[in-house]
């Protein structure tokens, strides 16, 4: 599994263009908006936006690291080749999950550095540390979402499905626009989404408030649910067809 993980990381890193594109958009947004004045939820705009963009970049990296690539490799036959090798299903899933989580780190690092310098964000070391851990661990359900998309869609539609999912998560989860300004029906839906819960956790950590165990529970539930769907699709594909 370690060998497989290393192999996957090496070849993904080689695709630097893909990595840069993943990071560029949230970084650009941060550069545009971080200088605005004002406070919200007890946080300055620069801090608030650090959390939003870190969540957005984390979700995007986690999903793009697995989804479209998986769909493409199911299509081109690489997955068939892997299935007849001794790599185990749990080993494969674990490697993909770790790979997705590691993909989050470059974007997160760039945003944190930008916030501390360009954004003049002052966060106590403890709060910043908690925030980083939350983003890294909290994106696991999005890795699972990427796997589900990669296993449900074909190579052409996976990219689009991913993009739409990401935008829905970002808008309804209150990352691009304030959640409270959404119509009430959308608020109800948004409040169910993992992006909402991850963002809330992040803002709470940055503001030094109690994190809120309900958010943690919601993210865990999403992980289990999406993981089960991915496992089901995987089994279905390996036994049927």
């Amino acid at each position: 599994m370690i060998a497989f993980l290393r192999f996957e990381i090496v070849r993904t890193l080689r695709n630097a263009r893909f990595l840069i594109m993943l990071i560029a958009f949230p970084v650009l947004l941060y550069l545009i908006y971080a200088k605005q004045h004002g406070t919200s939820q007890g946080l300055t705009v620069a801090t608030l936006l650090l959390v939003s963009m870190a969540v957005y970049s984390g979700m995007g990296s986690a999903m793009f690291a697995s989804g479209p690539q998986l769909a493409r490799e199911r299509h081109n036959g690489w997955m068939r080749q892997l299935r007849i090798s001794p790599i185990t299903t749990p080993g494969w899933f674990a490697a993909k999950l770790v790979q997705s989580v590691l993909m989050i780190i470059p974007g997160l690092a760039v945003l944190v550095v930008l916030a501390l310098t360009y954004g003049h964000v002052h966060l106590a070391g403890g709060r910043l540390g908690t925030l980083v851990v939350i983003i890294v661990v909290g994106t696991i359900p999005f890795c699972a979402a990427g796997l589900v998309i990669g296993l449900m869609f074909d190579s052409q539609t996976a990219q689009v499905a991913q993009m739409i999912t990401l935008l829905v998560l970002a808008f309804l989860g209150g990352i691009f626009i304030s959640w409270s300004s959404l119509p009430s029906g959308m608020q109800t839906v948004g409040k169910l989404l993992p992006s909402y819960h991850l963002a809330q956790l992040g803002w709470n950590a940055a503001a030094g408030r109690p994190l809120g165990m309900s958010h943690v529970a919601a993210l865990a539930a999403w992980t289990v649910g999406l993981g089960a769907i991915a496992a089901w699709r995987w089994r279905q594909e390996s036994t049927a067809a």
Partner: protein
Amino acid sequence: MFHNVTKVYNGRVTALDHVNFEIPRGATVALLGPNGAGKSTAIDTMLGLRKPTSGEVRVLGMTPAAAVAAGKIGGMVQTGGLPDGAKVSELIALFRQLYHGRRSQADLLRLAGLTDIADRRVEQLSGGQTQRVRFALALAGRPDLLFLDEPTAALDVEARRSFWQSVQAIAGQGTTVLFATHYLDEADANASRIIVVSHGRIMADGTPSQIKAYTSVRTIRFSTPAPHTSALLRLPRVNEVVASGEAVTIRSGDADATLPALYALGMPVRGLEVGGGGLEEALIALTGDGGVAAGAADLGEQAERAAAVTNSSDMTRVG
């Protein structure tokens, strides 16, 4: 190994129809048949990539899944792609590690003829090179049983030759090899046994020489002013005589025995032609359709084909 296996797709298309065969360890066996015959389905089933609708498949005395997990079988599947962004050497190193280094990197590169392109990225490879990489991956575990599904489809003549040399070297080390092909010469040259498949059924199963014995049926055509059919029928090894005006067609099991006797009859023979023979003719005959590689299908040969099909029942008994 393959017991009464049926595979039905979508409840409609029957890819394998109650197929039975068993392959002894150490043998090199060809699955020969036209496209859509069920060769790939059979191989996928033995690799555990597909589940049979009914019947039982055992490889090396276990289920395909168990054999895969134990790293005892290797396979080159027909649509096995490679992942973007990886180098040839990295891909082979990965598979070596998955199989706990049972074969050295240098060995694998050499066996598959990849030494010169080890540093090349996968997406820069030609079709033939990709195929050789997949061959190396299939060998990485030093498998007891190796499946090759149309392994030379994208290879040029030279690459094909060195490919089969490597396969023979591996078979020489005791690996059982089962390969699918629609190249008849390939089956003949590289297998100790040929299983002919068509429409999901086994049409013939025997050694290449048994299959070729069947193909020794020749068609002798000539014209003569007044054909004496019954005399012609008594010639050695003649199965059938068709006379139409001056044109005569004789089907013989051994043209070398028939021809001298034909001339000995003293009847005037003009424009004599001997046709047929070769595995391709046999395959067309056995599978009863022209879907085979060089499937020549002019009207004259339609009749020939139909006649040969009746004989195919004999062939199945041989196996």
